């Protein structure tokens, strides 16, 4: 089969991707590039990865037919329950994979960036599990906004280092992590939390998250007698949960893919994170992709009520899916997302992460047919967002 939508041998999705990195990072990234596929193909790696996903993370995550939600929208909606994973989101699929990768490359020290703290917690968790040193970079502003996750990381033994440069949020935490890697080129592995960064990161993270759609295939087969749904829906910040949910359906164009971005207070309000609409081609964190920037090429600060979606770029896979029209991109405002989150809570007894609420909000915009099978990737649970929901709805 011709792979039109997956990565090519040079590390590009169409025109997007590559490794636009300073020479100081070249040996680190090159070591990873030369080894990651070999390591992942090794039976002992697969065995350990699968075992941990099963016994530690709690996989497979259920594919749940949401009856009341389906009735309301007069279509057949399944929820892929990544929220039930250990640590509460899909993020841990990737951190388990990468910590095993780091061990096999002989690394002793782990660094990571985090925005809302979900990836930081997932990284701190696997470092505790493996007894490895863990340093998490987090924007100073995010540290103040996400105190419970900072406390979690500390309790798990990680050192949380504030990023004090630039806008002091996720993109700056990523810059700091990259600088740390430049300063520690030999013993350190950088666990990037999304399908962003220089090649091979977008591909490696997508492969670790691909377990999500791999399970969807056999779970749907059991429930519906077919392995392919009509639609797969996932929210996109950097895009790791979407990459996982789309992965095994990328080349099957009978399956329609819907990527949901955060419109914040409105796409053109000046406070938005809808990269596909507002972004232009450029380079961020070592990858050629779509990103929000000034005419002069300075990277701008996005906004969303959801801390997991306010990244100024998207992974190169998603830039390619957008450009080719393989995926439909829909932007959802803060208000639409919050309403959808409350609705799912009341209809199905599931409080979703605000990131995930964006995916659920498209049900009000799309008219699915009664016999359509729609899978929504329920990427995370809402515990971390309770305060936001409380403040928003004055609960």
């Amino acid at each position, binding site marked *: 089969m011709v792979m039109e939508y997956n990565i090519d041998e040079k590390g590009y999705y169409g025109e997007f991707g590559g490794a636009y990195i300073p*020479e100081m990072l070249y*040996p680190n990234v090159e070591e990873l590039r030369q080894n990651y596929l070999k390591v992942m193909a090794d039976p002992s790696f697969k065995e350990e990865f699968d075992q941990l996903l099963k016994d530690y993370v709690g996989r497979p995550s259920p594919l749940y037919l949401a009856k009341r939600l389906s009735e309301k929208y007069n279509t057949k909606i399944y929820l892929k329950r990544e929220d039930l994973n250990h640590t509460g989101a899909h993020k841990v699929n990737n951190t388990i994979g990468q910590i095993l990768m780091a061990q096999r490359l002989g690394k002793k020290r782990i660094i990571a960036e985090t925005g809302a703290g979900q990836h930081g917690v997932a990284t701190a968790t696997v470092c505790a599990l493996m007894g490895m040193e863990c340093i998490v970079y987090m924007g100073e502003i995010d540290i103040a906004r996400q105190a419970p996750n900072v406390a979690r990381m500390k309790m798990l033994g990680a050192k949380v280092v504030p990023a004090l440069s630039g806008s002091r949020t996720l993109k700056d935490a990523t810059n700091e992590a990259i600088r740390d890697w430049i300063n520690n080129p030999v013993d350190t592995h950088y666990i990037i939390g999304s399908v962003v960064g220089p090649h091979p990161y977008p591909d490696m993270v997508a492969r670790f998250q691909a377990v999500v759609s791999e399970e969807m295939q056999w779970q749907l087969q059991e429930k519906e007698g077919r392995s392919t749904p009509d639609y797969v829906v996932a929210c996109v910040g950097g895009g790791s949960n979407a990459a996982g949910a789309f992965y095994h359906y990328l080349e099957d164009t009978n399956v329609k893919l819907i990527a949901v971005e955060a419109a914040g207070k409105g796409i053109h309000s000046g406070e938005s994170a809808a990269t596909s609409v507002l972004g232009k081609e450029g380079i961020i964190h070592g990858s050629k992709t779509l990103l929000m920037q000034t005419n*002069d*090429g300075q990277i701008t600060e996005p906004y969303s009520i959801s801390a997991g979606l306010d990244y100024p770029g998207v992974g190169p896979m998603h830039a390619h899916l957008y450009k080719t029209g393989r995926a439909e991109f829909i932007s959802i405002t803060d208000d639409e997302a919050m309403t959808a989150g409350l609705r799912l809570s009341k209809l199905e007894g599931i409080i979703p992460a605000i990131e995930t609420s964006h995916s659920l909000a498209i049900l009000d915009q799309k008219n699915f047919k009664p016999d359509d099978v729609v899978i929504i990737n329920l990427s995370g649970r809402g515990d971390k967002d309770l305060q936001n929901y409380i403040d928003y709805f004055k609960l």
Partner: protein
Amino acid sequence: MKNLEMNRINKKLQGDKKLLSIYFSAGYPDIDDTVTIIQDLEKNGVDMIEIGLPFSDPLADGPTIQESSTQALKNGMTTNLLFNQLENIRETVEIPLIIMGYFNPMLQYGVEAFCKKCQDIGIDGLIIPDLPVDVYNEQYKTTFEKYGLTNVFLITPQTSVERIRFIDSISNGFIYMVSSASVTGSNSGFGKEQTQYFKRIADMNLKNPQIIGFGISNNETFTQATQYAKGAIIGSAFIKHLTTKGVGKISQFVRDIIN
């Protein structure tokens, strides 16, 4: 290549002198300081200047250059404004001028338009840390050469011998030798490990001379570095000097280095 033979960088590299190159962020401390700083550096005996085009996300830089870059952007620096400021620079300045910046602002300006503008103004070369060697070689080399621009590549203590040879083969000015595994602005002096690395590279007898950067901050580190290389580049230490002493005291800074 014809254009490059006339290049000020290559001429400068031919002499016996050990070269002092200074980096600063354009538009810092004040938006209108760019030209004054360049003129003063030349007047005080600096051999080459790297004009930093500020970027919002300078991955390879430590806190000092990050802060000067952020401040320059706050001051209103843009690619167009920098080109405007430099419009008549060749009426007063003769030493080689290099623009150092990250790739995204150049990409947005248009790589060919950027190169053409550089040639019009009299810029001699570019240093773009996040433009990888292979991408340059495949996509941009012809354009850079068309406009007579020297592109300078970096090597580090971790760069393999094979890759150094490759970088040497496609370079046409000098090689920017990063002194240690670090971002800019660390200045703990050079230990045995670093001098061994300097010597190892010197012994490779590369076609292009090397200029050492990162961690050069005073006369001692400048002297150490130029024992093994053609020259040395100072960035963060100079910016700190601008921050604390202002633009009026450039002669003092340069004197302390060259002594």
